[in-house]
């Protein structure tokens, strides 16, 4: 998967963005995580032909993006990178659902296209919310939040180590595949057996490395438990953020102001 290769710089970008400072960055990671989850649940709980009620939810990523001072172009690029799967499944909707749902002038729009648009919109909303969460929090803080929220400790420690060694091992894999490419000509040298021994080589080195890491941990008093020193504190701004967004999101979900507003205006317009 060349994607990890090309996404790795993005990953470092994420780290860089998470190191910035903004009101959003200073929020407690638990609060941000819960708000993001609530947002996603609200967005995906709509009926699949809903488009209009979904659109106002864009306010959440837009406002957070600006408050957290994150570059919008970056989020857009990441969104595009992740588009294929939703596209693959969503594109079938227009094929299977051809009932006309909407007339705009003489143009007939089928339910399939509406639900396709709805899928893509859901996709954009949920993915950008998750990206903003990570980019404004940072991986280690998120892990800390998970631990404090009761996620089992071995799992959290796991995540931390995985993230740390991701960069080291991806580098190693990159060097290995470069060395292979050096001596591969005209499409040869990509056979399954070669890949298997390449991966086995990487795996053996990984096992050795794990052994060395374990020794290094032991030398500093590791006893099976990884203790994280940093404390999290929930302050007034955190409470405000959570209650504020909960109110807004639930209102958007259940009162669906957009269609109502539209209708109200529609009545005013001469038909």
């Amino acid at each position, binding site marked *: *998967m060349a994607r*990890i290769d090309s*996404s790795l710089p*993005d*990953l470092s970008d994420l780290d860089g963005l998470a190191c910035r400072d903004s009101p959003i960055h200073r929020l407690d990671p638990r609060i941000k995580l819960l708000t993001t*989850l609530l947002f*996603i649940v609200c967005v*995906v709980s709509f*009926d699949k032909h809903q488009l*209009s*009620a979904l*659109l106002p939810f864009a*306010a959440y990523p*837009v*406002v957070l993006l600006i408050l957290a001072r994150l570059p919008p172009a970056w989020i857009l690029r990441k969104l595009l990178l*992740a588009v294929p799967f*939703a596209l693959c*499944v969503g594109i*079938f*909707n227009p*094929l299977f*659902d051809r*009932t*006309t749902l*909407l007339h*705009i002038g003489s143009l007939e729009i*089928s*339910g399939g296209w509406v*639900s396709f648009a709805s*899928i893509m919109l859901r996709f954009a909303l949920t993915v950008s919310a998750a990206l903003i*969460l990570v980019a404004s929090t940072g*991986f280690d803080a998120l892990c800390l939040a998970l631990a404090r929220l009761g996620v*089992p400790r*071995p*799992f959290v420690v*796991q995540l931390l*180590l*995985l*993230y740390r*060694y*991701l960069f*080291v091992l991806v580098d*190693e*894999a990159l060097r290995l595949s470069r060395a292979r490419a050096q001596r591969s000509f005209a499409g040869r040298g990509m056979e*399954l*057996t070669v*890949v*298997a021994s390449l*991966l086995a080589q*990487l795996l*053996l080195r990984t*096992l050795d490395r*794990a052994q060395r*890491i*374990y020794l290094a941990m032991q030398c500093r008093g*590791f006893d099976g438990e*990884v203790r994280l020193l940093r404390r999290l504190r929930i302050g007034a701004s955190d409470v405000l953020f959570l209650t504020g967004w909960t109110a807004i999101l639930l209102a958007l979900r259940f009162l669906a102001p*957009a269609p109502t507003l*539209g*209708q109200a205006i529609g009545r005013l317009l001469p038909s």
Partner: protein
Amino acid sequence: MHMADALISPLVGGVMWAATAAITAYSARKLDAGGDDRVVPLMGVLGAFIFAAQMINFSIPGTGSSGHLGGGMILSILLGPYAAFLTMASVLTVQALFFADGGLLALGCNIFNLAFFPCFVAYPLLYRTIAGAHASEKRILVASLVAVIAGLQLGALAVVLQTFFSGVSELPFATFLLLMLPIHLAIGIVEGLLTAAIVTVVGRARPEVLASAAALPATPRPGRGRLLAQLLLLTAVTGGLLSWFASTRMDGLEWAIFHSSGKEALPAPATDAHALAATLQERTALLPDYAFRPAAEEGDAAEPAAEVAAAGSGKEKEWPDVSAGTSFAGLLGATLSMLLAGLLGFALLRLRQRR
């Protein structure tokens, strides 16, 4: 194949979350009880290995496309099911957070599909049974092939089911299944071969690594029974609660259907493929059906499969006609609210620059 947030309903996402949370907690407890702290760094680094390994892709013979290592099976062989499950879960979490593969809500589905099946079903029931403790290279090959293929097929089936029950995609159940299973069979064969080859090389170079993992208990029988029972119970409770909540508190349409169909006794296991297909089609018809009608007409949900075609042509039932105006109004309102959001953003931006 990753599920995406955009394709699932909160009900499906929630149920799968609950199920994976339970398995995670259970695996973590088992691991703690194992008491071997060496496994902590091993799991972390092997998780990173799975990522790195996915960078090295290979050509699938005869197709010209390329594939990469999935990971669940090889981790189980190296670490045993509990640690392997936790490691796969963390790999998928990182993918969800950083690579936007799937999403937060779909994470439960993805962990279930890509970690639970290989680690807790295919590995103990197939790989361990076929390969045994001290396997010859031939047995490793057969065991890996069978186990990886089975794990992937189960995963693919689960993706189809989750998509189907979520009802966001219009893809008919049978079509989707027919798309998914063959693709994953091809992927499974290649990945099985690759897994076997890697295990063989590691076994030659470091026999002790495989030996120590093989000595770990695969899911012990009573534990497995209890795990499954707990899982089923938990899933049922969450499903029931969520769908009740949904049907009473939210707009209900989709969920009520699910709820009522969930209460129906599942069709008895079909003995011949024909009956199975028929049952599937019947169920398939259900969701596309409801999607085209207002709630009032929703009573005759058990109409035959021909409904799909009828609805597809869109001639008889002009259901959406009534709502065309509503939809237009909706679009107008949405545009306005987008505008408002944009204005809000702009104002914030100016405010920030002022400061």
